[in-house]
């Protein structure tokens, strides 16, 4: 296998396979071999498929193998959601998203590491070890889809899927220098996704190019009788082709812009330069307001833990997973959960249980739900003034392993720019826009990746991907630069 095949986008590889110029089995073993040789440096994979699947002719995704976040249930294949409480658990069924992509010709290459139950922004909350950022192994890949992002950025997978509840696709994509898309809430079925916060969780692609993201999205969306909140998209996902941004207005909210609180200077500079590229491509940059966005973190860290405290009640050692022995039924519940959950998951269960408890419900959960309404209203008003809202994806470049593990609130602030879109249920993409040094000037001399976030109204995926594609071509960021 030549290096140029490895460096092709997944869409290009699919074309080559379908044209008969590249063998699907060969493509599969190339990636599989690379995982076996190189993944001990990354820690991105928790399981890999042994053999290339039997290919049967034409398939729109060209038999290009897919890395799957370990949050997706896969029949007969261990699915842990990064938690020790599901160690060795083999689900009885496969998630709709995985099933759809396999049917379209993207067989599973492996399952990827993640923050436990998708709770985290650094992948350090995994029960199965940390994941290293391929740009600098001393740094985090972001989270919670950290394994999927690191695998794609390191060239250990052609493409991947993850899930995003408050930024868990976009933030690791940003920190690893790849493309990550969180679709409109409801675009993709959540059936078979281990639930974290059901009103926010959404599946999406992590890829090296915008076109790859569009291609995966096309085969992911659709109503699923097994998820009554799934809607699909109103029109078929098109492969993006736009080369300019003429007639499009990009709104910069000062609350999330380059000079917002906590945004590193280098990140702000890359963001401002990207705005210049938008103007060069014929787009118009306008100022908009999202006055309630700064309260997004507060609302999110009530709503998501509240939903999680309910969703995670099912892990009690009775029906699946390991069980703590001896004692009464209450002992069984309390010990199984104390031994099986990690610190961050316990923290969020406690936070959510507190927010929903008698006497505090209205002050926390009730108010947070009203803030959520205000944030959605802010976006609606902003989209009267512009086609897309843009911001840095993450206030900082990849931070060092261990840097924030002692300070939960500092970790939560990593989601500052991504949480508002999640609360509003709107689609948002992160594309790599450049490199910057962190605030303290540490890290590789060339800098670390900075993501540019573009958000559109609900169901605007086609327009969003088209605009992202035009900008991606102009930015010409090399998403293979961190290949191992």
């Amino acid at each position, binding site marked *: 296998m030549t290096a140029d095949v490895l460096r092709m986008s997944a869409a290009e590889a699919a074309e080559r396979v379908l044209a008969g110029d590249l063998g699907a089995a060969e493509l599969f073993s190339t990636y599989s071999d690379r995982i076996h040789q190189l993944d001990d440096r990354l820690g991105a994979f928790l399981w890999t498929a042994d053999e290339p699947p039997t290919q049967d002719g034409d398939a729109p995704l060209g038999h290009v193998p897919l890395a799957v976040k370990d949050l997706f249930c896969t029949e007969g294949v261990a699915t842990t959601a990064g938690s020790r409480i599901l160690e060795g658990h083999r689900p009885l069924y496969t998630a709709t998203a995985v099933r759809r992509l396999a049917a379209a010709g993207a067989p599973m290459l492996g399952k990827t590491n993640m923050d436990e139950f998708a709770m985290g922004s650094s992948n350090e909350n995994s029960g199965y070890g940390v994941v290293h950022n391929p740009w600098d192994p001393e740094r985090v890949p972001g989270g919670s889809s950290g394994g999927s992002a690191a695998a794609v950025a390191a060239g250990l997978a052609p493409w991947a899927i993850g899930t995003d509840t408050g930024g868990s696709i976009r933030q690791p994509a940003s920190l690893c220098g790849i493309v990550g898309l969180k679709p409109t809430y409801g675009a993709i079925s959540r059936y078979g996704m281990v639930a974290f916060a059901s009103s926010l969780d959404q599946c999406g692609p992590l890829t090296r190019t915008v076109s790859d993201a569009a291609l995966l999205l096309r085969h992911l969306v659709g109503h699923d009788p097994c998820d009554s909140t799934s809607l699909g998209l109103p029109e078929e996902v098109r492969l993006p082709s736009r080369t300019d941004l003429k007639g499009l207005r990009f709104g910069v909210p000062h609350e999330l812009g380059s000079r917002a609180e906590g945004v590193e200077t280098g990140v702000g500079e890359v963001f401002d330069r990207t705005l210049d590229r938008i103007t060069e491509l014929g787009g118009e940059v306008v100022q908009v307001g999202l006055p309630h966005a700064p309260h997004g973190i507060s609302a999110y860290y009530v709503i998501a833990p509240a939903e999680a405290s309910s969703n995670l009640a099912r892990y009690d050692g009775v029906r699946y997973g390991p069980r703590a022995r001896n004692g009464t039924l209450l002992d069984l519940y309390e010990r199984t*959960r104390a031994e099986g959950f990690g610190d961050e998951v316990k*923290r969020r269960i406690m936070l959510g249980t507190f927010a929903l408890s008698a006497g505090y419900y209205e002050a926390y959960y009730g108010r947070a739900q009203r803030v959520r309404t205000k944030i959605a209203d802010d976006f609606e008003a902003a989209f009267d003034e512009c086609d897309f809202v843009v911001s840095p994806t993450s206030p900082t470049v990849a931070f060092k392993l261990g840097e924030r593990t002692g300070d939960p609130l500092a970790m939560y602030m990593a989601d500052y720019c991504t949480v508002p879109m999640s609360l509003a249920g709107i689609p948002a993409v992160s594309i790599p826009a450049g490199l910057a040094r962190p605030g303290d000037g540490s890290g590789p001399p060339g800098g670390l990746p900075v993501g540019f976030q573009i958000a559109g109204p609900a169901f605007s995926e086609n327009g969003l991907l088209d605009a992202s594609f035009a900008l991606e071509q102009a930015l010409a960021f090399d998403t293979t630069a961190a290949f191992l």
Partner: protein
Amino acid sequence: MISRDQVLHVARLARLRIEEEEIDRISRELSSVLDHIEKISELDLDGVPPTSHVIHVENILRPDDPRPSWPAERVLEPAPDPAGGGFRVPTPGQ
């Protein structure tokens, strides 16, 4: 500030066993996060409806037709202690 008693109360509600030496740390961490969250108490939210589901859709119902389901032995495959076609658990307590 979340008191030790509140930590223990919430832990019991959540069915999480907390060790004595963890209580102060948990109390400190929860308090720090809740202090930040409490900024939303400054907002005027009178008359603002709550949002629990962000995309406006009506219930989608399927016809209530009986369909086959998995056999009990299949559902019990991942269980830590299956017995007699069910999930065995210890006594609920004295």
